[in-house]
């Protein structure tokens, strides 16, 4: 060979033959650097370590099979064959397969996609849409034959007012990502659903891979209605989970979340309805009770000071004192008007209402009105009982007494008006005492309106008063 003069082409061909026979199907480890991709999809890069650098190329056919993005700095193991690039006379590794070191290719691809979409803001909390208050028309993207669909329907069918539209898609293997994405787009565009579940049962990272693909993530992000993801098991997180508005642990859980939301809305409506009835009843009862109390006060007036004492007692505890005065005038009139309005109600509701609801409502209102009469009656009785509780007798039993000037009925409140020798009548819990005023004492604690009269002396009105 030494004696021969080579043409360049011949030499390179010879070297190439040697390289290809000696270095085909080899594996090289190194750090990726200088990655670039041609318009046709060929990947050019170098592998280097501390001392040396090797040119590499992955033709488009091989590059397409790469699950992750080839990035500078990545430690990889590349498999391929050495050949010479004839035009430059440089040898290079034609790569057929690249595996990242330290983790699987899928895991790396997942991390890269997650990082990229996260940086883009696709997972941002403020992008998340709340569930509709009435998730009633539910779209499902999943395999028509999978256990996930059966599991979800099992939950959703427990609720009578749920309509399900299934957009079937292959959820695993070649073409799965395209199918899932297009099913999402179709459901979103259909205008048939309030919310969409993207679901799939458990499986390996490879099995769930479609849900880590960018096109699925984008279809979720751009879906016009909120998307709930229920992919794999509790522990599985996919890019779709991060992109979805709500991530459920499993397909079943996704369905449960929607049923719970619907039931919450129903509960709020029923609760509000119940409270409306209850509160109205309370207002009516209250008004009736006030009226009853006002009427009852006529009887009380026969007992000296009873109303006066009751008023004093009630002042802090109840609004009754004011109402006693006002309501005797207005309550009767107002109640009559209220009842007339109530009687009008079924008609009013019927005019704008739903026939089926109307019937039940009319019935409810009839019950309500009947109830008012009974309740008003009960309220009168209970108020009377309450007033009795407040009767002066109870006050007197606790050791208080009421004093009047002899021959008068209004309670004596001011000692200043008394003169020595005047007769007083003191009502005790048991019996009354007639006594005479010996002397009026003006002490510091008195109301002081007549503080000018007489020096202060010991002895109270009751102590000193002579009994009859």
């Amino acid at each position: 060979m030494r004696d021969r003069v080579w043409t360049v082409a011949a030499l390179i061909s010879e070297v190439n033959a040697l390289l290809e026979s000696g270095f085909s199907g080899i594996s090289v480890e190194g750090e990726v650097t200088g990655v670039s991709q041609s318009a046709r999809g060929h990947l050019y890069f170098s592998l280097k370590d501390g001392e040396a650098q090797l040119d590499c190329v992955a033709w488009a056919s091989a590059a397409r099979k790469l699950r992750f993005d080839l990035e500078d700095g990545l430690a990889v193991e590349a498999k391929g064959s050495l050949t010479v690039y004839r035009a430059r006379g440089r040898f290079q590794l034609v790569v057929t397969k690249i595996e990242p070191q330290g983790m699987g290719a899928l895991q790396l691809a997942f991390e890269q996609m997650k990082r990229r979409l996260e940086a883009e803001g696709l997972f941002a909390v403020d992008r998340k849409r709340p569930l509709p208050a009435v998730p009633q028309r539910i779209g499902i993207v999943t395999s028509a034959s999978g256990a996930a669909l059966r599991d979800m329907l099992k939950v959703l069918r427990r609720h009578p007012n749920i309509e399900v539209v299934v957009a079937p898609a292959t959820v695993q293997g070649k073409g799965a990502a395209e199918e899932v994405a297009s099913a999402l787009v179709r459901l979103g565009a259909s205008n048939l659903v309030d919310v969409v579940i993207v679901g799939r049962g458990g499986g390996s990272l490879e099995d769930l891979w479609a849900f880590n693909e960018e096109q699925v993530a984008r279809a979720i992000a751009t879906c016009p209605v909120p998307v709930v993801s229920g992919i794999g098991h509790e522990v599985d997180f996919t890019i779709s989970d991060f992109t979805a508005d709500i991530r459920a642990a499993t397909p079943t859980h996704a369905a449960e979340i929607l049923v719970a939301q619907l039931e919450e809305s129903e509960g709020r409506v029923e609760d509000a309805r119940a409270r409306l009835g209850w509160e109205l009843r309370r207002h009516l009862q209250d008004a009736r009770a006030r009226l009853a109390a006002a009427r009852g006060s006529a009887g009380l007036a026969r007992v000296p000071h009873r109303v006066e004492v009751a008023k004093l007692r009630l002042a802090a505890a109840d609004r009754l004192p004011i109402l006693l005065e006002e309501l005797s005038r207005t309550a009767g009139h107002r109640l009559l008007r209220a009842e007339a309005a109530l009687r009008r109600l079924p008609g009013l509701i019927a005019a704008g209402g739903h026939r089926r609801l109307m019937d039940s409502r009319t019935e409810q209102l009839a019950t309500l009105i009947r109830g008012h009469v009974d309740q008003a009656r009960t309220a009168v009785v209970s108020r009377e009982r309450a007033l009795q509780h407040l009767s002066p007798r109870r006050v007197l039993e606790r050791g208080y007494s009421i004093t009047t000037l002899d021959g008068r009925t209004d309670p004596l409140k001011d000692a200043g008006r008394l003169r020595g020798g005047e007769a007083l009548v003191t009502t005790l819990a048991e019996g009354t005492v007639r006594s005479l005023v010996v002397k009026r004492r003006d002490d510091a604690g008195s109301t002081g309106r007549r503080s000018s009269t007489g020096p202060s002396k010991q002895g109270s009105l009751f102590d000193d008063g002579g009994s009859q």
Partner: protein
Amino acid sequence: VTKTAKTAAVKTDERFEDQLERLEEIVGRLEDDTVGLEEALDLFEQGMSLAGKCRSRLERVEQRVSKLLEAGTTEEMEIETS
């Protein structure tokens, strides 16, 4: 009959969420002791009407499972759930 009822329900422009919020607000006001009897009756009437709307909104659909076809139409879907 159900078809026209459905259409009418869908045409209600106010969102369910807003109706429900108004309803709860009305209940809140009705809980106030200082509300007069006439006003209480007005509130009750408004509340019942809103509750009726909310209810019919919740009953808008019937249980059904259908399949979305490529053309965008749907067909009944039979699934064994047991």
